[in-house]
């Protein structure tokens, strides 16, 4: 969808939330939902940070690492892409303590989701780096740059632009996966919606408000990433410089 439609949806969702919280008891449980939403935002931000770090590391290991590092990266990516996010969370939450490693649910959430999305992100980073035209590498050789200088100054900045849209999708995937932490006792937005529903039975407004709140967060990410893409494309038209 275009920027205009997305912005229109964002505004419409915000207005709908505002209007709904004016009616009946809705204002009462709205504060509970917002507290949950704040936790959701925190897990999303920290998880995204971890995902970007893991993805970049794994992709560079896989592309340029020595064989053991490459092997490690492949295992990480295949393992976390091969199993369910929920299974990974449960495993971290229920099984790791048996090996003497216990974490609080918040850390499990951030770690599990960050690792999961990071594995998908690794493929995004790898594809973007490989998508940079071979001539760019050759130019850096002709200018006698080291591989690391070439990566840092020439290749990664160009790959960065190509990575923005797929990362936008992954951040939204991560946001949506945060709902899973409600199943390991975290009071995020989904958890709040479910518990408030259990006590008040105001099913329709509660779940509608929760859905709209998630929609607002997703649209914010989408619009933000579009803006970032535009900003980094300014001046540089891809595909002509080769």
């Amino acid at each position: 969808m275009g920027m205009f439609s997305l912005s229109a949806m964002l505004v419409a969702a915000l207005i709908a939330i505002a209007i709904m919280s004016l009616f009946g008891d809705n204002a009462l449980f709205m504060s509970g939902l917002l507290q949950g939403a704040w936790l959701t935002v925190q897990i999303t931000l920290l998880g995204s940070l971890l995902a970007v770090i893991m993805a970049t590391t794994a992709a560079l290991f896989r592309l340029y690492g020595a064989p053991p590092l490459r092997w490690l990266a492949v295992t990480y990516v295949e393992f976390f892409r091969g199993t369910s996010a929920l299974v990974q969370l449960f495993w971290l939450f229920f099984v790791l303590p048996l090996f003497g490693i216990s974490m609080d649910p918040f850390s499990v959430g951030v770690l599990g989701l960050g690792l999961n999305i990071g594995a998908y992100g690794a493929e995004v980073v790898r594809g973007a780096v490989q998508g940079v035209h071979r001539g760019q590498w050759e130019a850096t050789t002709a200018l006698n740059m080291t591989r690391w200088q070439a990566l840092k100054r020439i290749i990664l900045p160009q790959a960065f632009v190509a990575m923005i849209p797929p990362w936008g999708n992954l951040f939204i995937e991560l946001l949506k996966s945060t709902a899973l932490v409600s199943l390991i006792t975290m009071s995020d937005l989904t958890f709040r919606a479910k518990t408030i529903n259990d006590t008040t039975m105001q099913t329709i407004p509660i779940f509608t408000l929760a859905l709209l709140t998630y929609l607002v967060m997703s649209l914010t990410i989408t619009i933000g990433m579009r803006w970032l893409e535009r900003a980094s494309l300014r001046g540089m038209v891809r595909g002509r410089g080769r």
Partner: protein
Amino acid sequence: MSADIWSWSYTLEILPILANAAIVTIEATLISFVIALVLGLVLAVLRMSGAVIGWFASAFVELVRSTPLLIQIFFIFFVLPRFGITLDAFTAGIIALSLHYGCYCSEVYRAGLEAVPRGQWEACTALNFSSWNTFKNIILPQAIPPIVPALGNYLVALFKDTPLLSAIAVAELVQTAKNLGSENFRYNEPMTIVGLTFLVLSLVSAAGIRWLEQRLNRRSVR
């Protein structure tokens, strides 16, 4: 010591129970995916038809893709009964999964349909085909093969999302593993077995998709 961490007798005891649960998981996957395939195509055609209905279809897809599957599952399971539609957990889960992945599939279909050159439509107009015949006999057969791998990836993704049904107590793999864990106070074996099952099935299907992709590529080159 080793029996503390892993008990083989317990493993043997729970394996048949987990195997039964695996059948529920696979059933849910296949039924949902078939519905998602049909729904996705319908949504894609609606979106491409333009006008108001197209905008609404797009907004619906955006809404579904922007919100967590888990909360959609809750929504269908808890909200629909308020409108007099009472569903058992399995059915509610199937509806949520098919809606969610139907929206993802619609994006794939749209890309496939848009990739068919305009000239194909124009040639059919010149041959005086009806739009329905053009779509069914000329456009779809060209649009589908290139997108089979992308659709296949969503099949795997859907399969990996079935554990969410445990949140409304559908007795699929993860729910069963959790139940076994809490009954026996041993989570290690059931959770690990379930994790491995997902890993193996996902890797096998990913390899299958890659194989299919190569076969399709070969065909389109000829």
